[in-house]
């Protein structure tokens, strides 16, 4: 374009648009995939290379063998990975407060990847638990504990837990919940129970409101990730395999599971 200054100004003064003289193409946007066909930027590569080496040195360290892997479970399957995490939380909480902790609960949504079968590395635990969430011990009554379990079932079909067995019977319109201790003994609704959970759930995350009412919170200063790393380290050093816990903590009939997913289930 070789316009003189005044000819540029004139259409603008007249309220005419240059674009009106040349047709405007139709509205559109595109996705540009960032793939291997694009060369690496040397300036950025120079910054990342030493950091990547540092990450690799730490995160490639071997931890423990998990010959079967530990998995969150597909539709209708129990979250055995979650059970292992809850067991480890309960164990670490007992160590932290030096007293029995009979129940632990975490949120399935916080477990970000499965542990695939084979040699586990530090990086695998970071991928599973990237968050800096902390282990917290609170006090609930037995009745509140049962309420916590029921809220987890109603919302997500049961959040991973340790120390209890939960059974749902009845119909999607009216479910009946039975919760006992893991050995089958009855939970005294009036008893005070120490409960291990995360600061995230205790703070009201993932909608288990009764957990928020927990009393005498003890913040352990241990992140969930660290206690899992520790647990793997102990097994690895003892030359033991990491195996998934046995299923059977939640038993929920399929029609009720489906009703929960469709948000149509009621106790």
């Amino acid at each position, binding site marked *: 374009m070789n316009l003189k200054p005044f000819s540029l100004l004139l259409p603008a003064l007249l309220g005419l*648009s*240059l674009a009106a003289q040349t047709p405007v193409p139709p509205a559109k946007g595109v996705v540009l995939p960032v793939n291997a066909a694009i060369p690496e930027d040397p300036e950025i590569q120079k910054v990342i290379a030493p950091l990547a080496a540092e990450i690799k040195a730490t995160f490639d360290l071997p931890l423990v063998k998990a010959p079967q892997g530990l998995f969150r479970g597909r539709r209708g399957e129990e979250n055995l990975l979650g059970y292992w995490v809850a067991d480890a939380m309960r164990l670490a909480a007992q160590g932290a407060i030096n007293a029995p902790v009979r129940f632990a609960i975490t949120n399935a949504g916080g477990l970000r990847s499965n542990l695939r079968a084979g040699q586990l590395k530090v990086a695998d635990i970071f991928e599973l638990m990237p968050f800096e969430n902390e282990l917290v011990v609170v006090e609930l009554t037995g009745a509140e504990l049962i309420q916590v379990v029921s809220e987890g079932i109603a919302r997500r079909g049961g959040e991973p837990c340790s120390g209890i067995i939960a059974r749902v019977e009845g119909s999607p319109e009216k479910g009946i919940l039975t919760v006992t201790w893991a050995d089958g003994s009855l939970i005294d609704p009036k008893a005070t129970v120490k409960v291990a959970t995360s600061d995230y759930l205790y703070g009201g995350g993932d909608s288990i409101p009764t957990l928020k009412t927990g009393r005498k919170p003890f913040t352990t200063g241990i992140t969930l990730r660290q206690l899992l790393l520790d647990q793997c380290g102990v097994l690895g050093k003892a030359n033991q395999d990491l195996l998934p816990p046995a299923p059977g903590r939640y038993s929920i009939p399929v029609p009720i599971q489906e009703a929960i997913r469709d948000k149509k289930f009621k106790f």
Partner: protein
Amino acid sequence: MDRRTFLAALGATAAATQLPLQAAAEPVQGSGRITLLHTNDTHSRIEPFGPGNGAISGLGGVTRRATLIKQLRQQLGSVLLLDAGDTFQGTPYFNRYKGRLDYQLMRMMGYDAGTLGNHDFDNGVGPLVEALEAMEQLQHANAPFALLNCNYDFKGAPALAKRVRPYQVKTFPGLRVGLTGVGVAFAGLVSDKNHEGITWRDPYESLKPVVKHLREVEKVDLVVLLSHLGYNLNGTAPDDLRLPGAVAGIDAIIGGHSHTFLEAPTKVPQAQGETLVFQVGFGGVNLGRMDFAVAKGTVRAASGSALPVLA
């Protein structure tokens, strides 16, 4: 044409009279082109996704993203590089470098602005501020980028308040672009202690005065929103698809939070024309590109808003 635009055009003409060779390059105010390049939910994915990640295996990586951005900037000239939040959390890089690396790399790549996602609060407000400080203190030719948000009240978090602006105006040859940002509610996503001193407000109500200010006071030609609300929440919470119906006058929404892989922007009608709503998955797998040609006069009057086009 308002007086300000007229004066700007006149100034350009006067300068051009003295330097006739540059005359053709001097644009008419309110007429120009701009390309928006954007990411969302990059989640500390510094390296490409490894094998075993399904359709996104082998995709992403900041070294490639940087090259792509450089190439496009060279080709296109007027470019804004933007991000819709959740820069933090997802790989050991975040655990080790606490987001400092992510923000520094964004500055090195030439990001102009970003917004805050819920995961950017994962380590709390203190470490978020530290990551921003590390980005600001980096010795680099590119300017530090701005964080934009207009629906978080930062009153109780002054160190962060200093670093987050409700909006920003960027000037390009021939046009002014207004940028702003909105974030998702904290409830159930960010623990109370991690957003201490910061209160969430309704994004629709927070946006209305900002968009009005950008249009009427700042006289921008294009309004772009960085949103970490999510693409479609089916009416359970504010989202990108329903936002244009509630707040008119936004030309483009660069979305995030829901990790939605859109193949092209969704055109949502609104009172002043239409809004292009876009989101490009997560993890830096894609770079989004939207091209806008803005033309004052007949075209602009007909649509009542800037007219988006692909170059």
